[in-house]
């Protein structure tokens, strides 16, 4: 059984220093099994300026078993699948310790963005490029960040406007857009089903 009171506390703890870390964890559903994590792309990397969204599912044994995480935002990185967003990170597997939290795990993922380990790749194509043609790797990663991990604030306001005009309350529109990472269609779907 998931220790929900711990998850609850983790979320509170995380929201306290959101300004400093930029890491955000929000529940997708009411039952705290399914969450969304947001990490800012580390400064000085091709991911800088991007906002990366991860899908988090807590297993029954949490926190004694590691949380399941994968990127929803597309990322070009040797240890992250460019297809599925699966992450190759030891602490999410056998090196998980119950003393770690969702926030520390997300910090580790952020650290992984800064320090790829191309010798232990999740995505062989990206890893090959990282090792053999680093310049192309950097520009591809930057391009992906630009295309998938950035939503201009203007764009967001336009989407909010559009959805509000359809008759949904503004606060609900904003929170829904945030959950789905700014995807207008997904937000609409969600609003309609709620």
């Amino acid at each position, binding site marked *: 059984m998931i220790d929900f*009171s*711990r998850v609850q506390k*983790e979320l509170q703890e995380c929201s306290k220093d959101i300004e400093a870390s930029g890491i955000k964890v929000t529940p997708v559903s009411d039952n705290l099994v399914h969450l969304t994590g947001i990490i800012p792309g580390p400064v000085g990397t091709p991911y800088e300026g991007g906002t990366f969204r991860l899908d988090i599912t807590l297993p029954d044994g949490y926190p*004694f078993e590691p949380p399941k995480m994968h990127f929803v935002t597309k990322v070009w990185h040797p240890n992250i699948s460019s297809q599925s967003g699966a992450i190759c990170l030891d*602490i999410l597997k056998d090196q998980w310790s*119950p003393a770690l939290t969702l926030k520390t795990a997300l910090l580790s993922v952020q650290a992984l963005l800064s320090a790829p380990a191309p010798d232990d790749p999740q995505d062989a194509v990206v890893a090959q490029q990282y090792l053999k043609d680093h310049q192309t790797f950097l520009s591809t990663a930057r391009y992906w960040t630009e295309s998938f991990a950035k939503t201009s604030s203007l764009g967001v306001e336009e989407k909010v406007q559009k959805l509000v005009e359809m008759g949904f309350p503004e606060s609900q529109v904003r929170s829904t857009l945030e959950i789905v990472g700014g995807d207008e269609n997904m937000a609409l779907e969600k609003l309609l089903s709620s």
Partner: protein
Amino acid sequence: MGEYRSSDDDYDYDYDYYDDDDEVDFVDDDENAAELEAAVEPEIPPNSCPSSKVITKESLLAAQMEDLIRVMDLLSLKEQHARTLLIHYRWDVEKVLAVLVEYGKERLFAKAGLTIVETDDVSSSQVSSSYCCNICFDDVSLEEITTMDCGHYFCNSCWTEHFIVKINEGQSRRITCMEHKCNAICDESKIRCLVRARNSDLADKFDRFMLESYIEDNKRVKWCPSVPHCGNAIRIEVDELREVECACGLQFCFRCSYEAHSPCSCYMWDLWSKKCQDESETVNYIAVHTKHCPKCQKLVEKNGGCNLVSCICGQPFCWLCGAATGSDHTWTSIAGHSCGRYKEDREKETESAKRSLERYIHYYSRYEAHRDSSKLESKMKETMQDNIKILEECSTASSKDFVWLFNGVDRLFRSRRVLAYSYPFAYYMFDGDLFADEMTKGEREMKQNLFEDQQQQFEANIEKLSSFLDEKFHLYNEDEIKDLKLRVIALSATTDNLCRNLYECIETDLLGSLKHSVHKIAPYNTNGIEKASLPSYQDT
């Protein structure tokens, strides 16, 4: 050395197996036989210290304690710490000693994740009466906190949860502390105590896992591979390739856990058993006799006629190259289609597949034949028992006087087994592929002749021994029995000797000269595969 010629027979036996000091003087037939018997078939193995032991369910604890106590005494450790250490070093006490000498106690312990610190309990170091557990973030009283040897403390409920997850993951033997990057192994007594409070079944399971570690994590101990499992494990005292017999009667190779297969090497046996099991030869047959239709991919068998074949789906194709063709053809050519060069290659391939199938059948049939006769001969003992009873009834003879007969049968069984396995050995040894870069064709032929000479001599003697043992001795008079006794004993000795020579030839001349020595065989034992001794400390 000497030569013995029996009075009324022409059997010649060489006694050059007496390479030790026990020269035998022949006085008369009776003593002769008795001495021969003693020398050739000693009932108790000369080395009274057995090199393998059976570990039963009951003796497992005692066997494990033996090693634990050695380490506990040596390093003045508690039992659970000694166990952590031994699990890490695969129950190899010598290895523990070697690491201790080379790196010192601290490194020895650290490598195994063993931390022995005189930690103060939280109670003495903490002033406040409650403490916030770093896992569940709940405030708990001090009684509900457990500190591990590494000094990290968390609440009991979190520890228990952690242990349960790890036990269920099958990691009972290496449950580390919950702290991130702490590799310390948790104290098994604390694990046991906490888990038992929550789930006593799981605690039992944990205990069993810990106990069985002695078998599963131990390079000198292996489960007996019997099916259904007899519950025993075997421990060997000397770390070398050998074959053993479990108390349940199963004989197996200690290295690969398959049936005893010497003089085949483990690698050869693995290849052979797979070859016999799967249909690789059938696959060969298919390669020779069938082809895929280029249209519907069904296998088509040619049932005569020319090289233009048509599949049941209607597609005509060329039998030689397998390509789709038109249906217009003559006896020698197909309109618009030619595959001349291809044809030659194909025929060669077919030829070689055929040859390799024939070669396999040659060896396989001999291997099977000897295993079959071995099965028939196993009934021999029963028949003999009956015949001896008949003799007992009409004379003063007792079954004790026929020990030589049973020894002869045992020799026959052992030799027959070796002979059977020598065929798959030869199949791989003299097969061009496996040792292609080890010897030239000429060398291979020479070695094959050498081996086959010995093998054939061995085989001839086995058949002769089999025929002796099959004689209707219950109809014989006393002199005739005496004669049979001498013949059986002497021939047994010769067979034993030939078998030893065959092993020697394989070990030194054939396998010994290889550069890559992946092929090793268990040494020959004149008394057959060693029976592992039963534990003497069963009651302790």
